[in-house]
């Protein structure tokens, strides 16, 4: 049986919006795909495992939690870069996205260096964008973010907000996806609500997976959850 190893980085520090659900979705779905799944967790101050994981997951935290994690993450940066070169994939949500970006411009004028895994640079804005969203590609969830994102060349976004109960969110360009890194500011959490993104991530590790019928119920429920959001935001 093929194996899938997931490393959830900072699950206690970065868990503002139920991001444990992203790991849960990956684990449950991978098991249904017939993979033997191992999930490891590493907190701030702990060492990375010796063996390279297939997927690294990062969640979201408060600003002080993010700054706390950032210092630790920088110390692990070289190892993470080596893993990515060797084939490890990364899922990062919310401030986890900040941490793997080029960096985050702070409100006090400072700059938080990121790991540079995306071509995005993030900035903290004075106001939050908050609301349920429906993006292109049928992705749906909730955004609660005060980050603006400037992008390098190339169309790597996950999606664009088509409808929302917050007018300010319409046209918001979310996330980053390049076949190695999947990042987003959509909560719900992202993967349980949008299983096709979970499956996309799994397909980056194992391209020839066939979706089992056992996932139909979960996918149907998630679809109806997204549909309910769609109906609400489209009025």
């Amino acid at each position, binding site marked *: 049986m093929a194996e899938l190893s997931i490393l959830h980085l900072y699950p206690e*520090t970065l868990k503002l*919006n139920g991001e444990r659900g992203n790991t849960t979705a990956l684990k449950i779905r991978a098991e249904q795909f017939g993979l033997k799944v191992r999930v490891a967790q590493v907190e701030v101050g702990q060492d990375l495992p010796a063996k390279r994981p297939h997927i690294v997951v990062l969640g979201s935290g408060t600003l*002080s939690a993010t700054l706390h994690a950032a210092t630790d993450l920088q110390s692990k940066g070289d190892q993470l870069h080596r893993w990515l070169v060797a084939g490890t994939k990364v899922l990062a949500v919310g401030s986890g996205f900040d941490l793997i970006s080029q960096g985050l411009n702070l409100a006090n004028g400072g700059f938080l260096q990121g790991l540079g895994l995306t071509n995005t640079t993030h900035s903290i804005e004075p106001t939050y964008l908050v609301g349920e969203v429906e993006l292109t590609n049928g992705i749906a969830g909730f955004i609660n973010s005060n980050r603006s994102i400037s992008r390098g060349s190339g169309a790597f976004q996950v999606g664009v907000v088509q409808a929302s109960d917050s007018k300010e969110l319409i046209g918001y360009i979310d996330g980053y996806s390049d076949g190695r890194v999947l990042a987003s500011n959509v909560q719900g959490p992202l993967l349980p609500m949008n299983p096709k993104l979970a499956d996309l991530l799994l397909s980056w590790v194992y391209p020839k997976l066939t979706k089992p019928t056992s996932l139909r119920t979960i996918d149907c*429920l998630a679809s109806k959850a997204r549909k309910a959001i769609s109906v609400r935001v489209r009025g």
Partner: protein
Amino acid sequence: MLTPLAVLVGKALRFVLRLRGGGSAVPGRIALLIQPKFLQKTLGRMASGIYFVSGSNGKSTTTAMLVKVLRDHGLRVLTNPAGGNLPQGLASALLADVDWLGKLSHDVAILEVDEAYGKLIAAKVAPNGLLLTNIQLDQLNRFHSPEEVFDYLDELAKLTTDLIVVNGSDANTERLAMGHSDRLKTLGVYISPKAMKSAAHGILAAPDFQNDGSNLDEAATLVDAKGLKATVSIAGKPFPVMLPSPGLHYAVDAALAIAFAGQILGPKFLPDVSAKAISGLPAVYGRGEVIEYQGQKLEIIMMKNLPSLQANLDALVTSPKCVWISVDEGTPDPSWIYDIDLGKIDHVDVISGTKTYQWATRLAYEDIGYGKLIESESAALEYFLSLPGAEKTAIVNYEQMMWLRKKLGLLDLEGGNG
């Protein structure tokens, strides 16, 4: 002349709306429109002071406990109802008690205030003392982060004149109080390691990465908590307290209320009177409250946020036999349900509300059976009541709880000042 007019119109509106069974904040809003200084004119004359209770969770329970303790010591206490902790809600509560000239006959005011709006009330009537229960993950669509709540409560503390008592085992409230120690009497209520271990997930405080580890002077210690029994110690003297509902969170609320009462009452404080006062309290709405309806016992568990739901689930002794989950747009983003340890919830019988499928998806990933999915809460309630068994558990958000109470004929949406 504005105050009597505000009282007249407000009282009339309050009477009419209560007949219809709702609208608790509307009379206060109108009174404030007529007399913008309504709060100053009414509350400003309190002889023994004004005290605020705030924090993410436990405000209502702690306030109810504190009020009962003070009343049983003989004080005439003015308070605001559960949920009525915004300026307009407070004004509505005052309308129930003021005379036609806007005068009150109470000795002391104990007011539950919203984390964000508390400072608005404090700017009008500065509190003598402030009691902070905790800072937890709550209403992120509104507050975005516990750090924002810290800043709001810090502003409230700046407007407080004499005393601040906080949950010292919550790193955020401890640090917040520490920042005011040069100007205010600052005290902490600490939870012993033994008591902390009585709940699977402890006190569920939001993480704090800036606390330097120094402690406040102790107002009280929660020595032990087990089921309905708690032991609180003040000045090294422990005494038992029977809680209105089981759970570490209630024990913490009781310790906070007793400690704060001790500060307000000074030498008149009596531990045995305080313990007896708390043991006689009913559960606050949605915090283990059991409603008798058509021969069935409906326990209401509120899922206001992750910590409140987790604390209530941790306090369950056995798996609920018949479970209904109902959540609507009062919880715009239920992402946090993926961080809940569902523990003793081994099945759910019916899910309703606009978040039906988000909850069902969560349960499906957990492989927990979810019975029927009925988006209409009225139809779901009918189905839930038709299920066999006389003991049922409803897990609902605040808005659904208020709807349910109204639906079941419980119209006492206000209260407090008996």
